Protein backbone atom coordinates (compact mmCIF):
# COMPACT_ATOMS: atom_id res chain seq x y z
CA UNK A 1 0.00 0.00 0.00
CA UNK A 2 1.32 3.46 -0.88
CA UNK A 3 1.55 5.96 1.91
CA UNK A 4 1.46 9.66 1.09
CA UNK A 5 3.15 11.89 3.65
CA UNK A 6 4.80 15.30 3.86
CA UNK A 7 8.39 15.77 5.00
CA UNK A 8 7.24 17.62 8.12
CA UNK A 9 4.96 14.70 9.02
CA UNK A 10 7.93 12.37 8.74
CA UNK A 11 9.99 14.63 11.03
CA UNK A 12 7.17 14.77 13.59
CA UNK A 13 6.76 11.00 13.54
CA UNK A 14 10.49 10.35 13.83
CA UNK A 15 10.87 12.91 16.65
CA UNK A 16 8.03 11.22 18.57
CA UNK A 17 10.05 7.98 18.59
CA UNK A 18 12.69 9.73 20.74
CA UNK A 19 10.24 9.87 23.67
CA UNK A 20 9.93 6.85 25.94
CA UNK A 21 6.92 6.15 28.11
CA UNK A 22 6.95 7.89 31.49
CA UNK A 23 9.47 10.55 30.53
CA UNK A 24 9.26 14.26 31.28
CA UNK A 25 9.61 16.20 28.07
CA UNK A 26 10.28 19.91 27.62
CA UNK A 27 8.75 21.22 24.40
CA UNK A 28 8.67 24.70 22.93
CA UNK A 29 8.13 24.80 19.20
CA UNK A 30 5.55 23.42 16.81
CA UNK A 31 7.15 20.27 15.38
CA UNK A 32 8.33 19.22 18.85
CA UNK A 33 4.85 19.73 20.29
CA UNK A 34 3.23 17.67 17.54
CA UNK A 35 5.80 14.94 18.23
CA UNK A 36 5.16 15.03 21.98
CA UNK A 37 1.39 14.82 21.59
CA UNK A 38 1.74 12.02 19.02
CA UNK A 39 4.00 10.09 21.42
CA UNK A 40 1.48 10.51 24.23
CA UNK A 41 -1.32 9.24 22.02
CA UNK A 42 0.66 6.20 20.88
CA UNK A 43 3.63 4.52 22.62
CA UNK A 44 4.24 6.93 25.53
CA UNK A 45 0.88 7.68 27.19
CA UNK A 46 2.51 8.37 30.56
CA UNK A 47 5.02 10.90 29.31
CA UNK A 48 4.58 14.41 30.70
CA UNK A 49 4.85 17.54 28.58
CA UNK A 50 6.04 20.73 30.24
CA UNK A 51 7.33 24.15 29.28
CA UNK A 52 9.42 26.69 31.14
CA UNK A 53 6.37 28.95 31.42
CA UNK A 54 5.62 26.80 34.48
CA UNK A 55 2.96 24.58 32.95
CA UNK A 56 3.43 20.86 33.62
CA UNK A 57 1.26 18.01 32.33
CA UNK A 58 -0.44 19.85 29.48
CA UNK A 59 -2.50 18.06 26.85
CA UNK A 60 -2.80 20.49 23.94
CA UNK A 61 -5.72 20.04 21.52
CA UNK A 62 -3.89 22.12 18.90
CA UNK A 63 -0.34 23.37 18.43
CA UNK A 64 0.32 26.24 20.84
CA UNK A 65 1.55 29.49 19.28
CA UNK A 66 4.29 29.81 21.90
CA UNK A 67 5.46 28.17 25.14
CA UNK A 68 2.78 29.79 27.32
CA UNK A 69 -0.17 29.76 24.90
CA UNK A 70 -3.15 29.25 27.20
CA UNK A 71 -5.57 28.91 24.27
CA UNK A 72 -4.20 25.53 23.13
CA UNK A 73 -5.09 23.31 26.09
CA UNK A 74 -7.49 22.82 28.99
CA UNK A 75 -5.96 22.45 32.40
CA UNK A 76 -2.72 20.81 33.51
CA UNK A 77 -1.46 19.07 36.64
CA UNK A 78 1.13 21.44 38.04
CA UNK A 79 1.26 25.20 37.71
CA UNK A 80 4.64 26.50 38.85
CA UNK A 81 6.72 29.22 37.25
CA UNK A 82 9.85 29.63 35.17
CA UNK A 83 12.17 29.82 38.18
CA UNK A 84 10.80 26.48 39.41
CA UNK A 85 11.01 24.89 35.94
CA UNK A 86 14.75 25.54 35.60
CA UNK A 87 15.81 25.01 39.21
CA UNK A 88 13.48 22.59 41.01
CA UNK A 89 12.76 20.60 37.83
CA UNK A 90 15.65 20.82 35.31
CA UNK A 91 18.50 21.31 37.80
CA UNK A 92 17.23 18.36 39.85
CA UNK A 93 17.39 16.03 36.86
CA UNK A 94 13.67 15.59 36.25
CA UNK A 95 13.84 16.52 32.56
CA UNK A 96 14.46 13.44 30.43
CA UNK A 97 14.15 15.00 27.00
CA UNK A 98 14.16 18.57 25.68
CA UNK A 99 13.12 19.40 22.13
CA UNK A 100 15.01 22.39 20.78
CA UNK A 101 15.41 24.27 17.51
CA UNK A 102 18.65 25.13 15.72
CA UNK A 103 20.10 28.18 13.98
CA UNK A 104 23.61 26.74 13.57
CA UNK A 105 25.03 23.46 14.86
CA UNK A 106 28.62 22.21 14.88
CA UNK A 107 29.87 18.60 14.79
CA UNK A 108 29.58 18.20 18.58
CA UNK A 109 25.96 19.35 18.80
CA UNK A 110 26.75 22.83 20.14
CA UNK A 111 24.08 25.25 19.02
CA UNK A 112 23.72 28.90 18.08
CA UNK A 113 20.29 30.52 18.10
CA UNK A 114 21.23 34.19 18.54
CA UNK A 115 23.57 35.80 15.96
CA UNK A 116 24.46 34.76 12.42
CA UNK A 117 27.76 36.42 11.47
CA UNK A 118 30.06 38.37 13.78
CA UNK A 119 27.85 39.36 16.75
CA UNK A 120 29.25 42.92 16.68
CA UNK A 121 28.38 43.30 13.01
CA UNK A 122 25.89 40.52 12.47
CA UNK A 123 24.06 39.40 9.34
CA UNK A 124 21.02 38.33 11.29
CA UNK A 125 19.79 38.25 14.87
CA UNK A 126 17.65 35.15 15.27
CA UNK A 127 14.92 35.08 17.91
CA UNK A 128 17.41 34.52 20.75
CA UNK A 129 18.48 32.08 23.45
CA UNK A 130 15.25 31.87 25.49
CA UNK A 131 15.32 28.76 27.64
CA UNK A 132 17.50 26.67 25.32
CA UNK A 133 20.92 27.02 27.06
CA UNK A 134 19.91 25.58 30.44
CA UNK A 135 17.67 22.89 28.95
CA UNK A 136 20.47 21.84 26.58
CA UNK A 137 22.86 21.73 29.54
CA UNK A 138 20.69 20.03 32.15
CA UNK A 139 18.24 17.73 30.31
CA UNK A 140 19.35 14.12 30.06
CA UNK A 141 18.78 14.09 26.29
CA UNK A 142 18.25 16.87 23.80
CA UNK A 143 16.51 16.28 20.49
CA UNK A 144 16.86 18.85 17.74
CA UNK A 145 14.49 19.26 14.85
CA UNK A 146 15.97 21.31 12.04
CA UNK A 147 13.90 22.98 9.37
CA UNK A 148 15.79 26.16 8.52
CA UNK A 149 19.07 25.74 10.39
CA UNK A 150 22.48 24.76 9.07
CA UNK A 151 25.58 22.78 10.06
CA UNK A 152 28.74 24.87 10.36
CA UNK A 153 32.41 24.21 11.15
CA UNK A 154 32.47 26.94 13.77
CA UNK A 155 29.49 28.60 15.41
CA UNK A 156 29.21 32.38 15.12
CA UNK A 157 27.93 32.44 18.70
CA UNK A 158 27.61 29.68 21.27
CA UNK A 159 24.14 29.68 22.79
CA UNK A 160 23.54 26.14 24.02
CA UNK A 161 26.26 23.68 24.99
CA UNK A 162 26.25 20.27 23.31
CA UNK A 163 29.32 18.06 23.72
CA UNK A 164 31.62 21.15 23.58
CA UNK A 165 34.95 19.83 22.14
CA UNK A 166 33.79 16.22 22.21
CA UNK A 167 34.92 13.33 24.42
CA UNK A 168 34.33 14.09 28.09
CA UNK A 169 34.61 17.88 27.78
CA UNK A 170 30.89 18.39 28.45
CA UNK A 171 31.02 16.57 31.76
CA UNK A 172 34.30 18.19 32.80
CA UNK A 173 32.55 21.54 32.34
CA UNK A 174 30.03 20.50 34.99
CA UNK A 175 27.01 19.24 33.09
CA UNK A 176 25.18 16.12 34.39
CA UNK A 177 26.89 12.79 33.67
CA UNK A 178 25.42 11.01 30.67
CA UNK A 179 23.47 14.04 29.48
CA UNK A 180 23.71 15.60 26.03
CA UNK A 181 22.39 15.80 22.48
CA UNK A 182 20.74 12.53 21.42
CA UNK A 183 19.36 13.08 17.94
CA UNK A 184 19.10 15.70 15.23
CA UNK A 185 16.23 15.25 12.81
CA UNK A 186 16.44 17.21 9.57
CA UNK A 187 14.62 17.15 6.25
CA UNK A 188 17.26 14.70 5.00
CA UNK A 189 17.76 12.22 7.79
CA UNK A 190 18.50 11.47 11.41
CA UNK A 191 21.87 12.22 13.00
CA UNK A 192 23.22 10.78 16.25
CA UNK A 193 26.38 11.17 18.30
CA UNK A 194 29.28 8.74 18.78
CA UNK A 195 29.30 7.37 22.31
CA UNK A 196 33.04 7.96 22.82
CA UNK A 197 34.11 10.84 20.58
CA UNK A 198 30.70 12.53 20.75
CA UNK A 199 31.00 13.47 17.09
CA UNK A 200 27.79 13.63 15.07
CA UNK A 201 27.13 10.97 12.42
CA UNK A 202 24.39 10.17 9.94
CA UNK A 203 22.29 7.40 11.46
CA UNK A 204 19.42 7.11 8.99
CA UNK A 205 18.34 8.71 5.74
CA UNK A 206 14.76 9.57 4.86
CA UNK A 207 13.37 7.57 1.90
CA UNK A 208 14.61 8.93 -1.41
CA UNK A 209 17.44 11.01 0.10
CA UNK A 210 20.97 10.56 -1.16
CA UNK A 211 23.86 10.14 1.31
CA UNK A 212 26.39 11.93 -0.94
CA UNK A 213 24.06 14.91 -1.34
CA UNK A 214 23.57 15.07 2.44
CA UNK A 215 27.35 14.92 2.95
CA UNK A 216 27.91 17.71 0.44
CA UNK A 217 25.75 20.08 2.49
CA UNK A 218 27.93 19.59 5.56
CA UNK A 219 31.23 21.49 5.80
CA UNK A 220 33.30 18.62 7.23
CA UNK A 221 33.78 14.97 6.35
CA UNK A 222 30.56 13.66 7.88
CA UNK A 223 30.75 10.22 9.41
CA UNK A 224 28.08 7.75 8.34
CA UNK A 225 26.82 4.78 10.35
CA UNK A 226 28.11 1.40 9.17
CA UNK A 227 24.58 0.06 9.41
CA UNK A 228 22.93 3.13 7.91
CA UNK A 229 19.16 2.79 8.03
CA UNK A 230 16.28 4.22 6.06
CA UNK A 231 13.97 6.23 8.30
CA UNK A 232 10.81 4.30 9.11
CA UNK A 233 7.63 5.87 7.78
CA UNK A 234 4.59 6.79 9.87
CA UNK A 235 1.50 4.59 9.60
CA UNK A 236 -1.84 5.78 8.15
CA UNK A 237 -3.04 6.11 11.73
CA UNK A 238 -0.07 8.28 12.75
CA UNK A 239 -0.59 10.49 9.72
CA UNK A 240 -4.27 10.89 10.47
CA UNK A 241 -3.36 11.93 13.99
CA UNK A 242 -0.76 14.47 12.87
CA UNK A 243 -3.09 15.98 10.22
CA UNK A 244 -5.92 16.27 12.69
CA UNK A 245 -3.83 17.70 15.51
CA UNK A 246 -1.48 19.91 13.50
CA UNK A 247 -2.59 20.62 9.91
CA UNK A 248 -0.35 23.70 9.83
CA UNK A 249 2.69 21.58 10.73
CA UNK A 250 1.75 18.97 8.11
CA UNK A 251 1.73 21.55 5.32
CA UNK A 252 5.18 23.03 6.09
CA UNK A 253 6.29 26.65 6.17
CA UNK A 254 5.65 27.76 2.59
CA UNK A 255 2.06 26.56 2.50
CA UNK A 256 1.52 27.92 6.03
CA UNK A 257 2.26 31.41 4.77
CA UNK A 258 0.06 30.96 1.72
CA UNK A 259 -2.91 29.74 3.79
CA UNK A 260 -2.50 32.50 6.36
CA UNK A 261 -2.44 35.20 3.71
CA UNK A 262 -5.64 33.78 2.19
CA UNK A 263 -7.29 33.65 5.59
CA UNK A 264 -6.48 37.27 6.41
CA UNK A 265 -7.47 38.49 2.96
CA UNK A 266 -10.87 36.78 3.31
CA UNK A 267 -11.31 38.30 6.76
CA UNK A 268 -10.59 41.84 5.55
CA UNK A 269 -12.81 41.46 2.49
CA UNK A 270 -15.70 40.14 4.58
CA UNK A 271 -15.40 42.99 7.09
CA UNK A 272 -15.32 45.66 4.39
CA UNK A 273 -18.34 44.10 2.65
CA UNK A 274 -20.26 44.16 5.92
CA UNK A 275 -19.33 47.80 6.40
CA UNK A 276 -20.74 48.72 3.00
CA UNK A 277 -24.07 46.97 3.65
Amino acid at each position, binding site marked *: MTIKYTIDELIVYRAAQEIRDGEMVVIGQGIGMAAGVLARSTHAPNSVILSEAGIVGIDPFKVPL*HIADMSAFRGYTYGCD*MMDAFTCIANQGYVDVAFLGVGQMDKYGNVNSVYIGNPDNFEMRLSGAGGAPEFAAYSMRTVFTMSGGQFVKKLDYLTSPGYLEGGNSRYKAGMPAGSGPAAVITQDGVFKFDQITKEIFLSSVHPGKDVEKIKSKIPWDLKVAVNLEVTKLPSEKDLEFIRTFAPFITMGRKLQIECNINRIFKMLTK*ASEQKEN
Partner: protein
Amino acid sequence: MEKYMNVDKRMTMEDAISKYVNDGESFVYANCLTGMPLALTHELIRSGKKNLMLFDQASIEEIDMLIEARVIDRLVTTFNFRVGGKRTTSPLERALKERRLKIEELSNLTMLSMMKAGAMGYSFIPVLSGIKMADFVKRSNYLGNQRFGEVKDPFTGKKQLVVKGYNPDFAFMHVQRADTAGNGQMWGAMFNSKWAALAANKIILTCEKIVDAEVIKSSPHLTIAPSFKVCAVIECPWGAHPSELAGFYDNDFPFRALYFATLGSSASIKTWMDEWIYGIKDRGEYLAHYVEKLGTESLDVLRAKPRLSVPADYGNANSYEWDESGYNRSLDMNMSQFVEFLDKKGVLLQS
Protein backbone atom coordinates in the same frame (compact mmCIF):
# COMPACT_ATOMS: atom_id res chain seq x y z
CA MET B 1 11.60 49.83 47.40
CA GLU B 2 8.56 52.08 47.38
CA LYS B 3 5.57 51.35 49.63
CA TYR B 4 1.96 52.03 48.68
CA MET B 5 -1.11 52.11 50.92
CA ASN B 6 -4.09 49.82 50.62
CA VAL B 7 -6.30 52.61 49.22
CA ASP B 8 -8.23 53.21 46.00
CA LYS B 9 -5.59 53.68 43.29
CA ARG B 10 -7.78 53.73 40.22
CA MET B 11 -6.76 56.34 37.66
CA THR B 12 -6.50 56.70 33.89
CA MET B 13 -3.63 55.03 32.10
CA GLU B 14 -2.49 58.44 30.89
CA ASP B 15 -2.31 59.78 34.46
CA ALA B 16 -0.54 56.66 35.73
CA ILE B 17 2.20 57.01 33.15
CA SER B 18 2.63 60.74 33.54
CA LYS B 19 2.75 60.41 37.32
CA TYR B 20 4.92 57.31 37.73
CA VAL B 21 7.16 57.08 34.64
CA ASN B 22 10.17 59.32 34.09
CA ASP B 23 12.54 59.57 31.12
CA GLY B 24 15.66 57.46 31.54
CA GLU B 25 14.18 54.96 33.99
CA SER B 26 14.31 51.18 33.76
CA PHE B 27 11.26 48.94 33.62
CA VAL B 28 10.30 45.28 33.36
CA TYR B 29 7.35 43.38 31.92
CA ALA B 30 5.90 41.21 34.67
CA ASN B 31 4.21 39.09 32.01
CA CYS B 32 5.85 37.06 29.32
CA LEU B 33 4.36 36.15 25.92
CA THR B 34 0.93 35.51 27.46
CA GLY B 35 -1.38 38.17 28.96
CA MET B 36 0.96 40.95 27.82
CA PRO B 37 0.18 44.51 29.01
CA LEU B 38 -0.08 45.82 25.47
CA ALA B 39 -2.66 48.53 26.15
CA LEU B 40 -0.18 49.98 28.67
CA THR B 41 2.59 49.63 26.08
CA HIS B 42 0.57 51.63 23.54
CA GLU B 43 -0.11 54.33 26.15
CA LEU B 44 3.61 54.51 26.99
CA ILE B 45 4.37 55.01 23.30
CA ARG B 46 1.74 57.79 23.06
CA SER B 47 3.17 59.46 26.18
CA GLY B 48 6.43 60.25 24.37
CA LYS B 49 8.62 59.07 27.26
CA LYS B 50 12.16 58.33 26.14
CA ASN B 51 15.56 56.83 26.97
CA LEU B 52 14.01 54.01 28.97
CA MET B 53 15.84 50.77 29.71
CA LEU B 54 13.74 47.65 29.26
CA PHE B 55 14.05 44.25 30.89
CA ASP B 56 11.89 41.99 28.70
CA GLN B 57 12.19 38.25 29.13
CA ALA B 58 10.76 37.32 25.73
CA SER B 59 8.83 39.40 23.24
CA ILE B 60 6.46 38.76 20.38
CA GLU B 61 5.67 42.35 19.47
CA GLU B 62 6.43 44.93 22.20
CA ILE B 63 10.22 45.21 21.78
CA ASP B 64 9.98 46.10 18.10
CA MET B 65 7.23 48.66 18.79
CA LEU B 66 9.14 50.33 21.63
CA ILE B 67 12.26 50.53 19.48
CA GLU B 68 10.48 52.06 16.50
CA ALA B 69 8.76 54.59 18.76
CA ARG B 70 12.19 55.55 20.22
CA VAL B 71 10.94 54.83 23.77
CA ILE B 72 13.80 52.52 24.76
CA ASP B 73 17.53 52.86 24.11
CA ARG B 74 18.78 49.99 26.32
CA LEU B 75 17.45 46.45 26.33
CA VAL B 76 18.04 43.31 28.38
CA THR B 77 16.38 40.32 26.76
CA THR B 78 16.65 36.66 25.85
CA PHE B 79 14.22 36.41 22.97
CA ASN B 80 12.56 38.61 20.36
CA PHE B 81 10.32 36.71 17.97
CA ARG B 82 11.65 37.17 14.44
CA VAL B 83 9.61 36.69 11.29
CA GLY B 84 10.92 36.05 7.82
CA GLY B 85 14.25 34.87 6.48
CA LYS B 86 17.59 36.45 5.57
CA ARG B 87 16.14 38.91 3.08
CA THR B 88 14.15 40.80 5.71
CA THR B 89 15.25 42.72 8.82
CA SER B 90 13.53 43.38 12.13
CA PRO B 91 13.28 46.72 13.93
CA LEU B 92 15.58 45.27 16.61
CA GLU B 93 18.21 44.37 14.03
CA ARG B 94 18.04 47.79 12.37
CA ALA B 95 18.32 49.60 15.72
CA LEU B 96 21.38 47.53 16.68
CA LYS B 97 23.02 48.12 13.29
CA GLU B 98 22.40 51.84 13.50
CA ARG B 99 23.64 51.94 17.12
CA ARG B 100 20.34 53.40 18.34
CA LEU B 101 19.96 50.63 20.90
CA LYS B 102 22.26 48.82 23.29
CA ILE B 103 21.49 45.20 24.08
CA GLU B 104 22.41 42.63 26.69
CA GLU B 105 21.72 39.04 25.66
CA LEU B 106 20.84 36.53 28.37
CA SER B 107 19.06 33.21 28.80
CA ASN B 108 15.63 32.89 30.38
CA LEU B 109 16.90 31.62 33.72
CA THR B 110 19.83 34.02 34.09
CA MET B 111 17.61 37.01 33.36
CA LEU B 112 14.85 35.93 35.72
CA SER B 113 17.46 35.22 38.40
CA MET B 114 18.55 38.87 38.18
CA MET B 115 14.95 39.76 39.03
CA LYS B 116 14.65 37.17 41.78
CA ALA B 117 17.83 38.37 43.52
CA GLY B 118 16.61 41.96 43.24
CA ALA B 119 13.19 41.00 44.58
CA MET B 120 14.68 39.23 47.60
CA GLY B 121 17.06 42.06 48.37
CA TYR B 122 20.20 40.06 47.51
CA SER B 123 23.03 41.59 45.50
CA PHE B 124 23.55 38.31 43.63
CA ILE B 125 22.16 34.79 43.25
CA PRO B 126 23.53 31.44 41.98
CA VAL B 127 22.50 30.23 38.53
CA LEU B 128 23.18 26.94 36.71
CA SER B 129 26.96 26.95 36.17
CA GLY B 130 26.87 24.51 33.22
CA ILE B 131 26.21 27.35 30.75
CA LYS B 132 29.22 29.47 31.69
CA MET B 133 31.03 28.93 28.37
CA ALA B 134 28.07 30.31 26.39
CA ASP B 135 28.68 33.57 24.54
CA PHE B 136 25.89 35.44 26.30
CA VAL B 137 27.86 34.87 29.52
CA LYS B 138 31.26 35.74 28.04
CA ARG B 139 30.29 38.70 25.88
CA SER B 140 28.84 41.70 27.63
CA ASN B 141 27.77 45.03 26.32
CA TYR B 142 26.73 48.18 28.18
CA LEU B 143 26.28 46.47 31.56
CA GLY B 144 29.94 45.39 31.47
CA ASN B 145 30.80 43.20 34.45
CA GLN B 146 27.50 44.01 36.18
CA ARG B 147 25.85 40.77 35.01
CA PHE B 148 27.80 37.59 35.76
CA GLY B 149 30.33 36.71 38.42
CA GLU B 150 31.91 33.61 39.88
CA VAL B 151 32.17 32.91 43.59
CA LYS B 152 33.61 30.08 45.65
CA ASP B 153 30.87 27.97 47.25
CA PRO B 154 31.75 28.11 50.97
CA PHE B 155 30.39 24.59 51.55
CA THR B 156 31.73 22.59 48.62
CA GLY B 157 34.63 24.80 47.57
CA LYS B 158 33.42 24.61 43.96
CA LYS B 159 33.18 27.59 41.64
CA GLN B 160 29.63 28.91 41.32
CA LEU B 161 28.32 31.13 38.54
CA VAL B 162 26.18 33.99 39.87
CA VAL B 163 24.21 36.92 38.45
CA LYS B 164 23.71 40.38 39.88
CA GLY B 165 20.32 41.37 41.31
CA TYR B 166 18.41 44.19 39.65
CA ASN B 167 15.51 46.41 40.72
CA PRO B 168 13.83 48.08 37.75
CA ASP B 169 12.13 51.41 38.56
CA PHE B 170 8.72 50.09 37.61
CA ALA B 171 6.91 47.04 36.24
CA PHE B 172 4.12 46.87 33.68
CA MET B 173 1.69 44.11 34.48
CA HIS B 174 -1.67 42.86 33.21
CA VAL B 175 -3.83 40.44 35.22
CA GLN B 176 -7.33 38.99 35.12
CA ARG B 177 -8.71 40.85 38.14
CA ALA B 178 -7.76 43.25 40.94
CA ASP B 179 -9.44 45.25 43.66
CA THR B 180 -9.36 49.05 43.70
CA ALA B 181 -6.22 49.02 45.89
CA GLY B 182 -4.41 47.00 43.22
CA ASN B 183 -4.26 43.56 44.79
CA GLY B 184 -3.85 41.86 41.43
CA GLN B 185 -4.80 38.25 40.77
CA MET B 186 -3.52 36.14 37.91
CA TRP B 187 -3.87 32.53 36.81
CA GLY B 188 -2.53 30.44 33.95
CA ALA B 189 1.09 30.22 32.82
CA MET B 190 2.85 32.12 35.61
CA PHE B 191 6.16 32.37 33.73
CA ASN B 192 8.27 35.28 35.09
CA SER B 193 5.42 37.19 36.75
CA LYS B 194 6.15 36.72 40.44
CA TRP B 195 9.83 37.66 40.39
CA ALA B 196 9.59 40.41 37.80
CA ALA B 197 6.73 42.07 39.72
CA LEU B 198 8.47 41.81 43.07
CA ALA B 199 11.82 43.01 41.68
CA ALA B 200 10.40 46.34 40.52
CA ASN B 201 10.19 49.31 42.87
CA LYS B 202 6.53 49.71 41.92
CA ILE B 203 3.94 48.09 39.69
CA ILE B 204 1.64 49.83 37.21
CA LEU B 205 -1.21 47.35 36.94
CA THR B 206 -3.98 46.84 34.42
CA CYS B 207 -6.70 44.24 34.78
CA GLU B 208 -9.65 42.93 32.80
CA LYS B 209 -11.97 43.55 35.70
CA ILE B 210 -12.01 45.47 39.01
CA VAL B 211 -13.61 43.27 41.67
CA ASP B 212 -14.75 43.67 45.24
CA ALA B 213 -12.03 43.28 47.90
CA GLU B 214 -14.01 40.28 49.24
CA VAL B 215 -13.31 38.39 46.01
CA ILE B 216 -9.57 38.85 46.61
CA LYS B 217 -9.85 37.81 50.25
CA SER B 218 -11.65 34.61 49.25
CA SER B 219 -8.80 33.58 46.91
CA PRO B 220 -5.49 35.01 48.19
CA HIS B 221 -3.50 32.23 46.50
CA LEU B 222 -4.20 33.97 43.21
CA THR B 223 -2.80 37.34 44.28
CA ILE B 224 0.48 38.01 42.50
CA ALA B 225 0.67 41.81 42.74
CA PRO B 226 0.28 42.81 46.41
CA SER B 227 -1.23 46.27 46.86
CA PHE B 228 1.78 47.56 48.81
CA LYS B 229 3.79 47.41 45.58
CA VAL B 230 1.10 48.73 43.24
CA CYS B 231 1.05 52.47 42.54
CA ALA B 232 -1.81 52.52 40.03
CA VAL B 233 -4.56 50.18 38.88
CA ILE B 234 -6.55 50.56 35.67
CA GLU B 235 -9.48 48.45 34.51
CA CYS B 236 -8.86 47.68 30.87
CA PRO B 237 -10.86 44.96 29.10
CA TRP B 238 -8.88 43.37 26.22
CA GLY B 239 -5.78 45.00 27.72
CA ALA B 240 -3.54 42.16 26.52
CA HIS B 241 -4.88 41.85 22.96
CA PRO B 242 -3.54 40.42 20.60
CA SER B 243 -1.95 38.08 23.17
CA GLU B 244 -4.20 35.63 25.00
CA LEU B 245 -5.42 35.67 28.58
CA ALA B 246 -6.81 32.58 30.31
CA GLY B 247 -10.52 32.94 31.00
CA PHE B 248 -10.93 35.94 28.71
CA TYR B 249 -9.66 35.58 25.14
CA ASP B 250 -7.42 33.62 22.76
CA ASN B 251 -4.49 35.06 20.85
CA ASP B 252 -5.34 36.88 17.65
CA PHE B 253 -3.09 35.39 15.00
CA PRO B 254 -4.49 37.21 11.94
CA PHE B 255 -4.17 40.57 13.67
CA ARG B 256 -0.59 39.79 14.61
CA ALA B 257 0.21 38.68 11.09
CA LEU B 258 -0.92 42.10 9.84
CA TYR B 259 1.53 43.70 12.29
CA PHE B 260 4.38 41.31 11.44
CA ALA B 261 3.92 42.15 7.78
CA THR B 262 4.91 45.76 8.52
CA LEU B 263 8.17 45.05 10.40
CA GLY B 264 10.41 45.02 7.32
CA SER B 265 10.78 48.81 7.12
CA SER B 266 10.49 51.75 9.48
CA ALA B 267 8.01 53.39 7.14
CA SER B 268 5.59 50.49 7.15
CA ILE B 269 5.67 49.94 10.90
CA LYS B 270 5.18 53.70 11.34
CA THR B 271 2.00 53.43 9.26
CA TRP B 272 0.81 50.58 11.47
CA MET B 273 1.54 52.55 14.64
CA ASP B 274 -0.20 55.66 13.29
CA GLU B 275 -3.28 53.57 12.71
CA TRP B 276 -3.30 51.46 15.88
CA ILE B 277 -1.43 53.57 18.48
CA TYR B 278 -0.92 57.26 17.68
CA GLY B 279 -4.29 57.72 15.99
CA ILE B 280 -6.12 56.04 18.87
CA LYS B 281 -7.07 57.53 22.24
CA ASP B 282 -7.43 54.45 24.41
CA ARG B 283 -8.28 50.75 24.35
CA GLY B 284 -11.97 51.49 23.88
CA GLU B 285 -11.25 53.33 20.63
CA TYR B 286 -8.80 50.59 19.64
CA LEU B 287 -11.54 47.97 19.93
CA ALA B 288 -14.00 50.13 18.01
CA HIS B 289 -11.43 50.54 15.23
CA TYR B 290 -10.77 46.79 15.28
CA VAL B 291 -14.45 45.98 14.81
CA GLU B 292 -14.76 48.54 12.05
CA LYS B 293 -11.76 47.21 10.16
CA LEU B 294 -11.85 43.46 10.85
CA GLY B 295 -15.47 42.81 11.78
CA THR B 296 -17.21 41.86 15.03
CA GLU B 297 -16.90 38.18 14.23
CA SER B 298 -13.10 38.34 14.20
CA LEU B 299 -13.20 39.51 17.79
CA ASP B 300 -16.05 37.26 18.91
CA VAL B 301 -14.27 34.05 17.86
CA LEU B 302 -11.52 34.90 20.35
CA ARG B 303 -13.79 35.11 23.40
CA ALA B 304 -13.09 32.41 25.98
CA LYS B 305 -15.74 29.89 26.96
CA PRO B 306 -15.85 29.49 30.75
CA ARG B 307 -13.94 26.65 32.39
CA LEU B 308 -14.09 27.29 36.12
CA SER B 309 -11.48 26.13 38.58
CA VAL B 310 -13.00 24.22 41.49
CA PRO B 311 -12.91 26.75 44.35
CA ALA B 312 -10.54 26.18 47.27
CA ASP B 313 -12.45 26.01 50.54
CA TYR B 314 -10.83 28.36 53.05
CA GLY B 315 -13.43 27.61 55.73
CA ASN B 316 -12.83 26.84 59.42
CA ALA B 317 -15.09 26.00 62.40
CA ASN B 318 -15.63 29.69 63.11
CA SER B 319 -14.97 28.96 66.79
CA TYR B 320 -14.69 32.47 68.17
CA GLU B 321 -13.21 33.10 71.64
CA TRP B 322 -16.69 34.09 72.92
CA ASP B 323 -19.71 32.34 71.45
CA GLU B 324 -23.07 33.95 70.68
CA SER B 325 -24.20 33.59 74.33
CA GLY B 326 -20.93 35.17 75.59
CA TYR B 327 -19.45 31.87 76.80
CA ASN B 328 -15.74 30.97 76.29
CA ARG B 329 -15.34 27.25 75.78
CA SER B 330 -11.58 27.08 76.40
CA LEU B 331 -11.85 29.05 79.67
CA ASP B 332 -15.23 27.63 80.69
CA MET B 333 -16.24 31.16 81.77
CA ASN B 334 -18.38 34.06 80.62
CA MET B 335 -16.98 37.63 80.53
CA SER B 336 -18.02 38.59 84.10
CA GLN B 337 -16.58 35.36 85.48
CA PHE B 338 -13.37 36.12 83.56
CA VAL B 339 -13.02 39.63 85.03
CA GLU B 340 -13.74 38.24 88.50
CA PHE B 341 -11.05 35.62 87.94
CA LEU B 342 -8.44 38.21 86.88
CA ASP B 343 -9.28 40.33 89.90
CA LYS B 344 -9.05 37.38 92.27
CA LYS B 345 -5.59 36.45 90.89
CA GLY B 346 -4.42 40.04 91.56
CA VAL B 347 -3.34 40.86 87.97
CA LEU B 348 -5.75 43.78 87.50
CA LEU B 349 -4.08 47.14 88.13
CA GLN B 350 -6.05 50.11 89.46
CA SER B 351 -6.01 53.63 87.90
